């Protein structure tokens, strides 16, 4: 008798849990979201207290540009200075790391890395990757623009596979308008023609 009642009680509890579980999980998610939102608001207040200093940010970006310039080739620096992005040849296919490689990347500051086919201009993927500094020295985890570009460049050059594995991969158009990328590729072609680059013929059809 007792055994039967006990079993029935357990079955009842399990059934009730099964019925209540979606609501319980939703409630848990809501509480978690609320806590996260409160924490973010507290962080924003902290940031506001520290104060956004445009002069400091400008000086930081200036330093970052100098560091980037000292690390990459002169021509790449000119590309970034003139166009606002950097092209890196893919290192895993044919003619790796050189003009004529089967794919290449465009590195934008604080935007996904865009992979494309140089010979056709076809866009392949967006790789969303960030380098957040958890110590948030001035209330922000965001590196200066040129530091972000340099971090992506170094990581791609040193260990392309590892960086791509760390990134969230999306189809083109997820964050950056494909039209913008096509315009940038056309600008790159024009820029290479004008400056006499070795990749001028590689993406001529993208123009």
């Amino acid at each position, binding site marked *: 008798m007792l055994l039967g009642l006990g079993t029935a009680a357990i079955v009842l509890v399990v059934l009730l849990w099964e019925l209540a579980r979606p609501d319980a999980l939703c409630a848990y998610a809501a509480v978690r979201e609320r806590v996260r939102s409160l924490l973010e608001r507290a962080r924003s207040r902290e940031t506001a207290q520290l104060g956004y200093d445009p002069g400091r940010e400008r000086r*930081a970006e200036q330093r970052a540009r100098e560091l980037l310039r*000292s690390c990459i080739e002169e021509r790449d620096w000119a590309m970034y200075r003139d166009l606002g992005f950097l092209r890196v040849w893919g290192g895993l296919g044919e003619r790796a790391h050189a003009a004529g490689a089967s794919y290449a990347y465009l590195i934008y500051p604080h935007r996904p890395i865009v992979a494309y086919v140089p010979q056709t201009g076809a866009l392949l993927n967006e790789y969303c990757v960030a380098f957040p500094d958890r110590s948030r020295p001035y209330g*922000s985890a965001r590196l200066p623009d040129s530091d972000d570009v340099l971090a992506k460049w170094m990581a791609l050059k040193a260990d392309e596979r590892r960086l791509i594995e760390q*990134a969230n991969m999306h189809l083109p158009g997820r964050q950056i308008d494909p039209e913008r990328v096509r315009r940038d590729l056309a600008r790159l072609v024009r820029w290479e023609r004008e400056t006499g680059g070795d990749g001028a013929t590689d993406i001529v059809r993208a123009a």
Partner: protein
Amino acid sequence: MKLLRMKPGHGEILVAEGDVEIQEEEERLIEAFRKELDAGMWAAVPSERRDGRREAELVKSFAEVPRDAERVIFFPRAAGGAQGSAGTRTAR
């Protein structure tokens, strides 16, 4: 050799500087190097090849840093970004 670290709101900062041929200075560099890695940084050594091409190498210990390297640059490790931001597409 200089150990530099990228920093939000600042650009790079000099973490440590020293001559690897002087034991005391090398020890100081090793200690600073470890500290940055423990703080979750990646370490990269930028270099120039004989043909003038610029490269970079990620290193996981001070022993992997070429003895003649001028700089090691620390930067926060990569994390997948903007997973759910489908609505934030930008166009120029």
